[in-house]
């Protein structure tokens, strides 16, 4: 066996990459004349030092879990779904329609139907690029990213012309009724010190459930096996009797549905109305999350928490250290993506060598049998 242990693959390498990224970010902070140590402290304290910080960190993480899983599922079928942004935006539309059109008696019922609508809208938005890829060979990267723009334009049109509250100048829907207000962390676990204003809500549990279900799907079902087989080698999969059109369609529909589900958190759980950019780039962060989490639900979960920390910590950093601008936060996030995604092999190769040599030494040390 010349492979690394699994824990090194899933945890150690991403961790080293993140540390490298943070070191480089520290240099950038130093360059603009602030103390990197202090900046780091502010970020960590802002994201994890209070119930307020945790509320936002886990709220963002919930978004990233959904979009990260979406990208991960597509990755297993060797599909690069970078349309999470648009699919999540459409999911938001589904949630808004469900919440606004029916006078729901209880939030649980509304959440159930809203989940369905979010997933269906997200999946529908992924279906067209998937079909074009499966039947016409149009590259999924190109079509999904184009669909992001179409989704954004569609949403702007609907919010400005259809859903806008008469008399209001802001392009947003009316607020959802109180009955569909999702229980937030303060309602569920008040002993943890969350305030009633925390955005963290029950969708977080939904995201955990989604992690488990994706794991079940990919590693414990026949369909998951087919998706992985197709991803590893299309020709071999076809030879084994797997229908590529079917796998592409199903993988992308699941992927789009997961991205759409993000809206239960951001639209129904937090904003309680649909605004123009409710996704806030989570669709793209999902790519980094899936890359970093190596497309495994546990990895996606951990990476999503990390990016939640970066997002919330970044907002705090901007707030506490005015010299560090919003763009600076994007630089730090970009460095993390660069090191965990693009420069992955830079860390991976030496680590593999290291483990290999350790193992050889082990073997040499053990008495010959």
């Amino acid at each position: 066996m010349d492979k690394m242990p699994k824990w090194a693959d899933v945890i150690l390498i991403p961790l080293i990459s993140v540390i490298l990224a943070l070191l480089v970010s520290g240099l950038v902070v130093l360059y603009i004349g602030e103390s990197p140590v202090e900046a780091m402290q502010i970020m960590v304290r802002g994201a994890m030092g209070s119930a307020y910080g945790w509320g936002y960190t886990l709220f963002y993480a919930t978004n990233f879990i959904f979009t990260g899983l979406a990208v991960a599922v597509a990755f297993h079928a060797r599909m690069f779904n970078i349309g999470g942004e648009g699919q999540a935006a459409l999911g938001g539309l589904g949630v808004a329609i469900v919440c606004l059109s029916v006078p729901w008696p209880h939030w649980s019922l509304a959440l159930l139907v809203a989940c369905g609508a979010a997933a269906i809208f997200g999946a529908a938005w992924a279906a067209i690029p998937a079909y074009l890829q499966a039947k016409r060979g149009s590259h999924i990267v190109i079509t999904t990213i184009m669909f992001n723009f179409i989704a954004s334009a569609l949403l702007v049109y609907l919010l400005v012309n259809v859903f806008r509250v008469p008399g209001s100048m802001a392009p947003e829907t009316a607020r959802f009724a109180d009955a569909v207000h999702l229980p937030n962390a303060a309602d569920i676990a008040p002993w943890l010190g969350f305030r009633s204003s925390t955005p963290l809500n029950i969708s977080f549990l939904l995201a955990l459930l989604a992690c488990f279900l994706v794991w079940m799907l990919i590693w414990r079902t026949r369909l998951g096996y087919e998706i992985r087989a197709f991803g590893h080698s299309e020709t071999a999969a076809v030879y084994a009797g797997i229908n590529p059109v079917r796998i592409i369609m199903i993988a992308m529909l699941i992927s789009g549905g997961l991205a759409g589900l993000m809206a239960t958190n951001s639209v129904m759980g937090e904003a309680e109305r649909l605004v123009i950019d409710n996704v806030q780039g989570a669709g793209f962060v999902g790519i980094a999350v899936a890359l970093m989490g190596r497309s495994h639900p546990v990895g996606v979960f951990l990476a999503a928490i990390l990016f939640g920390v970066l997002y919330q910590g970044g907002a705090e950093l901007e707030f506490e250290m005015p010299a560090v601008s919003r763009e600076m936060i994007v630089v730090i996030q970009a460095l993390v993506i660069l090191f965990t995604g693009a420069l992955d092999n830079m860390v991976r190769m030496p680590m593999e060598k290291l483990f290999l040599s350790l193992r050889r030494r082990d073997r040499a040390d053990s008495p010959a049998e």
Partner: protein
Amino acid sequence: MSLMKSLLGAAAATALSVTAVLADGPALVFDLGGKFDRSFNEAAFNGAQRWAEETGGEYREIELQSDAQREQALRRLAEAGSNPVVMAGFAFGSVLDTIAPDYPETTFVIIDSVVDQPNVQSIIFQEHEGSFLVGMLAGMASETGVVGFVGGMDIPLISRFGCGYAQGVVAANPDATVIANMTGTTPAAWNDPVRGGELTRGQIAQGADVVYAAAGGTGVGVLQTAADEGILSIGVDSNQNGIHPGQVLTSMLKRVDVAVYNAFTAGDEIETGVTVLGLAEDGVGYALDENNAELITPEMQEAVDAAREQIIAGEIVVHNFSDDGTCPVAMQ
């Protein structure tokens, strides 16, 4: 359960930190378009700066990057103990309406929108009155008899600028034509100077020789194009005469800076309710300085100042678009 432990510890830490910083100063949230848009947000910034320089006090500020951040920004400032929290922009209205009751100790000030909560001061400006004055100047300065208007986001607030402007133009030159364009339908329209420039070029092609920009950061593109093409432009909110000296006819001043300055100065004592700032309160007006002194003839100045007095006295009534959603003067 280390997570649980850290969460509990964190809760205690928040409780401590909140009481510790209660005596914090005021805060300002800028809307999309950016702090240095040389227009609306920058006017707010200037007001805050003036307060900081005069009193030596410090204030917190947040620059928004997207619509979805509004709630977190306001909550963050309120939780940090800032008071009053001033926000520049109507788009905060719906968010403020829901979060204001959560922070009864904090006073919020919203500019350009009315929010009916006991701890909110709403400041609105009579932009149609100021726009009427610059419209008159445009009507008198135009040689072709065609003047343009470039709005930011297509909302009643901006139509209020456009309609007041058109009434002023027609008052000065009954035969004049007003061409009006809006940049977009979303808040992104506040920061799209390229599109602003394109619209200006289109209006110039239709014969316009004075263009009024009421579009926040987009206006920078309008003024630039107008200067490049050799026609006159009219700035908005801040005094933008100096951006292209001698080529900006005037600016419709909307004293957002005064509103912010007053709110900051009042501090904890700030009053709530609705404040309306018009010509009489010097909340709106037109800018005259060394950059446009040669463009405004004494006759023009005399006519406009007379109109200003008449509006204040109620002898001229400038129709407010927001009252009924219609404008008595047709715009193309």
